[in-house]
C-alpha cells in the first residue's frame, strides 16, 4: 500500500501498480470488473478520505466511481486513469491524526477522556455523514470497553491511525 509520503511525489507507474493491486483484490472473476459496492473500500485503502458524496458521484467525468451500463460494475479501464488523477492531485485529502483527536475532544465536552457509547452513537447516526445502524452496531461491538461501558477514544486513535504494511 502507498505510504503517506507527503514530501516526495508518487511516480505514475508505481501508482498504476498500486491501484491495480487494490482493484484486483475485489475482481472476483478476473474480468477487470468490480462490484460498485466495493469501490469505497478500494478507494479508502489507497490512502484517500473521500466523502460519501465523492463515493456516490456517478456523474462527474473524472469521478472514479463511474458504473458500466451493461454490467452495473466498475471497469478497471475507467477506474485506473480516474483514480490515478485522484491520487496525483490529492483530490480526497487525508485528515491528519491530530485533528481526529481534536474531533473526539470536541464531542467529549467534559474532558473525561472517554465517551459513553450512547453519546457517540447519537453523534454518529445523527450528524455529518450518517452511520447506518449496522455500522454503528459494528463500531460499538468492536471498540467499546464493555465492562465499563465506555469508549476510550485515545485507544481508538492508535488503532485507526496505524499504517498497515500490506
Amino acid at each position, binding site marked *: 500500500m502507498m505510504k503517506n509520503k507527503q514530501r516526495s511525489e508518487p511516480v505514475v507507474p508505481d501508482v498504476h501498480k498500486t491501484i491495480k493491486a487494490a482493484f484486483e483484490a475485489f475482481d472476483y472473476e478476473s474480468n477487470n470488473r468490480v462490484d460498485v459496492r466495493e469501490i469505497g*473500500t478500494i478507494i479508502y485503502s489507497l490512502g484517500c478520505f473521500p466523502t460519501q458524496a465523492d463515493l456516490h458521484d456517478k456523474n462527474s467525468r473524472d469521478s472514479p466511481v463511474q458504473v458500466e451500463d451493461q454490467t452495473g460494475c466498475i471497469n478497471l479501464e475507467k477506474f485506473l486513469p480516474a483514480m490515478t488523477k485522484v491520487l496525483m492531485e490529492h483530490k480526497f485529502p487525508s485528515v491528519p491524526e491530530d485533528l481526529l483527536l481534536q474531533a473526539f475532544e470536541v464531542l467529549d465536552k467534559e474532558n473525561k477522556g472517554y465517551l459513553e457509547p450512547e453519546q457517540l452513537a447519537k453523534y454518529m447516526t445523527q450528524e455529518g455523514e450518517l452511520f447506518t445502524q449496522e455500522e454503528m452496531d459494528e463500531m460499538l461491538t468492536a471498540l467499546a470497553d464493555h465492562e465499563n461501558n465506555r469508549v476510550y477514544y485515545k485507544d481508538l486513535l492508535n488503532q485507526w491511525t496505524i499504517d498497515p504494511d500490506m
Partner: protein
Amino acid sequence: YGCSIRVPLVAAVLIQRWYRRYMARLEMRRRYTWNIFQSIEYAGEQDQLQLSGFFSFMLDNFTQLNGNGPDLISQLLEPVVDPWLDREICYNLIPVPESYTGPRLSFPLSVSDTNALLAAFKDQQILHARYVLQLLYETKKLLKQMPNIVHLSTSYTNEITICGDLHGRLDDLLLIFYKNGLPSAETPYVFNGDFVDRGKKSIEVVCLLFAYLLLYPDYMHLNRGNHEDHIMNLRYGFTKEVMQKYKTHGREILQLFQDVFSLLPVATVIDGKILIVHGGISDQTDLDFLSTIERHKCLTWNSLCSVPPPAPPQHDREWKQVRGADPAPPPPPPKWRGPPSAPFHLLSSLREVGDILWSDPKTHEGWSPNTFRGRGCYFGPDVTRRLLLQHGLQLLIRSHECKQEGYELCHGGQVITIFSASNYYEEGSNRGAYIKVGRELLPRFYQYQVSRATRKLTLTQRYNR
C-alpha cells in the same frame, strides 16, 4: 481543516471518515489473505491441465483411426480393475485382538453401532481395519443398487437438511449433529460431497457418513464430490491419512474406498424441483443422459479431458462466451452421443460428470472452460436458467467453494452454494452452514463456527435411541 474544530458536525464527519477508512483497510487485508489462501488451494489442481492437454492430443489422434481407434481409447479410459466387480476382501479373516477397545460393529448396523462409532471417534479412537473393510464392503453393495440421480420427496419425510463440503473436519460434522440432530426418519440428510482430504479426520467423517447410510438408507443421502477420487486423495491427504492410521491394511482399505467413491450417486433431486450436485453444471448438462451413464467408470484418470468430445462432421463446436448484450443467444449445440458402448458415449459421460463435480458459477452470462481448476466449466445465469427450465426445476444447490458465511446465493437466487467446513483456511476465516428445506421448498440457512467452546459441547452430547 485549517482552523481547529469547534462544531460537533465537523467533528462527527472526521470521525466517520476515519472509521470508514479503518474498516476498509481491514476488509482489504482480509481480501488479500483470502485470495492467497484460494490461490494456494487451487494451484495444485491446475497441474492436471498439463496432463489433460496431452490426453486430448492423444484422443484426437486415436479417434481418427478406423476400427482400432475406439478400442484403444476404451482400454486407455477404463479403469484397470472395474470398481463394479467384487474384490477379494476377506475381512472375516482379519483378527481383532482382545486388547482392542474400540467399537465392534455388527452388520446389519443398528443405532447402538452408530452411537458406539460416534463415542469412539469423539474419544480419538481408531476403528479397527476389519470393521472399516466390512463397512466399506457393505456400503459398496448398497451403492451398487442406487441410481446415478437419487430422487427424494418431502411428502415422506420432514425437513431435509443439506450439508456441503466437510473435508475431514470431524468437529464440524459433530457440531452439525449436535445442533440439528443425528440422521433419522425425523432428520434426513443430504451430504453434498468432499467428505475427505485436507482435514485430519477424513476417515472418521466418512465412516460415520457411511455408517448412517447403511443404518438409514432412506434418510441419509451422499453425493459424490470431486475429492471422492483416487488422484485427489493422493495429493490432498486422504491417502496419507489412511496409510498412517492403517499400516497393515491401508492398501486394501484404500482400494475399497476408491470403489465406493466411484459408486456414489452424482446428483440428488428433491421433489423434482431442487437439484443438488457438488460442483455445478454446464450447458451440456442433461439429467436424462446422466441417468443412463455408468458412473463408476467416470474417474479422474480418465476424465482429464476437459475438451469436448470430437464433434460429428457437420457441426463446428467451439468454446464460446455469450455476452449479455447479445439479443438472442444461439441455441445450445445438439448433443450427439452415439450408442452407449461407443467411446463417444464414454467421453461424454466423463465430461458431464467432470462438469457436475468441478464447475463454478460466475456472474457473467455464457460458459467457458474452468481454467482455474483445470476441469469443469464456469457457468453463467443463463446456463442455470436454461437447465432449470428444461427440467422443470426451481433451484440448484451446490458446494465446492468456500464461502465466508458458509453459504452464498447467486444467479438471482437460483443457485445456492453451501459449505460446511468452518475455519477452513484458518481459525476465524469462515463460518460453516447447512440448509433445511421443507414441503414449501423454501431454503433456511443455519450457520455455525467450531471453536474450543463448541468442541466441549459436542463431546458431552447425549444422543437418544
